[in-house]
């Protein structure tokens, strides 16, 4: 087993929470370190607008 994987198993994990903040909050309340990454689906999840944006952005 590589040293890096051993470190991962021995140490406490740091979580990256993508999107909905509440999921990260419950991990934080359980004592874990959480890094929040704000993300939401393009155009708020509207597939018609997202398709338009594919050609423009």
């Amino acid at each position, binding site marked *: 087993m590589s040293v890096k994987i051993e470190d991962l198993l021995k140490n406490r994990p740091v979580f990256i929470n993508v999107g909905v903040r509440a999921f990260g909050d419950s991990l934080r309340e359980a004592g874990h370190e959480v890094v929040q990454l704000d993300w*939401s689906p*393009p*155009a*708020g999840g*509207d597939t018609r*607008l997202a398709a*338009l*944006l594919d*050609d*423009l*952005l």
Partner: protein
Amino acid sequence: MSLKERINAANEEAFRRIVAADPVLVDVAPASEVIPGLRDRMILHSGPPVTWERMCGAQKGAAIGMCLFEGWAEDAAAAERMLGAGEIALEPNHHHATVGPMAGTITRNMWVWVVENRAFGNRAFCRQVESFQQFGDHSRDALAGLEKWRDVWAPALGAAVRKMGGVPLKSLVARALLMGDELHNRVVASSSLFANAVAPILVDCGLPREQVVATLYYAGNHPFLFLGLSMAAAKASMDPARGVEASTVVTAMARNGTEFGIQVSGLEGEWFTAPSPRVHGLLLPGWKEEDAGLDMGDSAITETVGWGGAAIGGAPGILNFTGGTAEQALAFSRDMRTISVGTSPDYLLPALDFAGTAVGLDIRKVVHANLVPVIDTAIAHREPGHGIIGGGIVRPPMECFTKALARFSEKYNG
């Protein structure tokens, strides 16, 4: 070149024109002498086009006030009849290189700030900012304020500005941002800087002493004096960015109290509208939520150029007018960067480590991030006949941006 590359190049050009703008106050003059296409028996108003029937209460009240101010009608009932009969033409300020606060009403004898963009040679105009007639109050007292502006203050300020050879506004605005203004509803520093700059010249213009004293008092004590100037400066700065083929940059956001409308550089001449939203904020004592009208005014031209909500993080003093917290204000200004082409090299915010204000709202980024701009604004009554009733924060309807994006796609990708 792919469409995406064309859009990016077009937006860079629109951005270049906006940041290159050099607004200079060159005059204060009667609207009839300077605003192109302003005819007799015509009222210019804020926002996208609107008919008398669909006009909101506050804007109707302001239009009645202008009929009385011009002497077209003897009383409010007669004015209402004339407006209802279509005897008075109604056109948006934005169709005349002009902007107006709240109801935004301008007629031939209303004096206006004249701002020239010396980088491009275009001019833009804005009327006096006050707390009564522009909110729909058409009482004798409200009209007396317009008459003093026409007869005393505006002619004196015009004389001083002409004697000065113009007042450069770019450096003044940059200094005011460092002093806690955001150039929309917080213009305390800019108003003082302007009054200080004009005062020594004003006393040397050969005007009657009473007029000079009255004008110095007006300029030195009006907390919203500079809003008319920042609006005209913003309009003069934005207009050269109109009509850049394939640009998705927003060139105007304006509201008439019935509809919110935006215009887009690559879709010149078109409006994209949705119902005006409700403003969330603080009401003056005695007023209730149900008294409030919907969002109104051309003053969101300040947000369009990168002031107002884009700069509110550096202006915590405004929060006693709009509500909210300093942390929220900082987040608003950061959000505006997410949906803009770039940041200003000249207009800097100390509270954000001297980052430039966001410039060039991009309809693609707004829709992609599902995030609309932030606007701070005043609140008018929903019925005619009242002055200001409050202030707050408002967000444009996303529908304006999605309609614009669909039309853009149809025009350029269809």
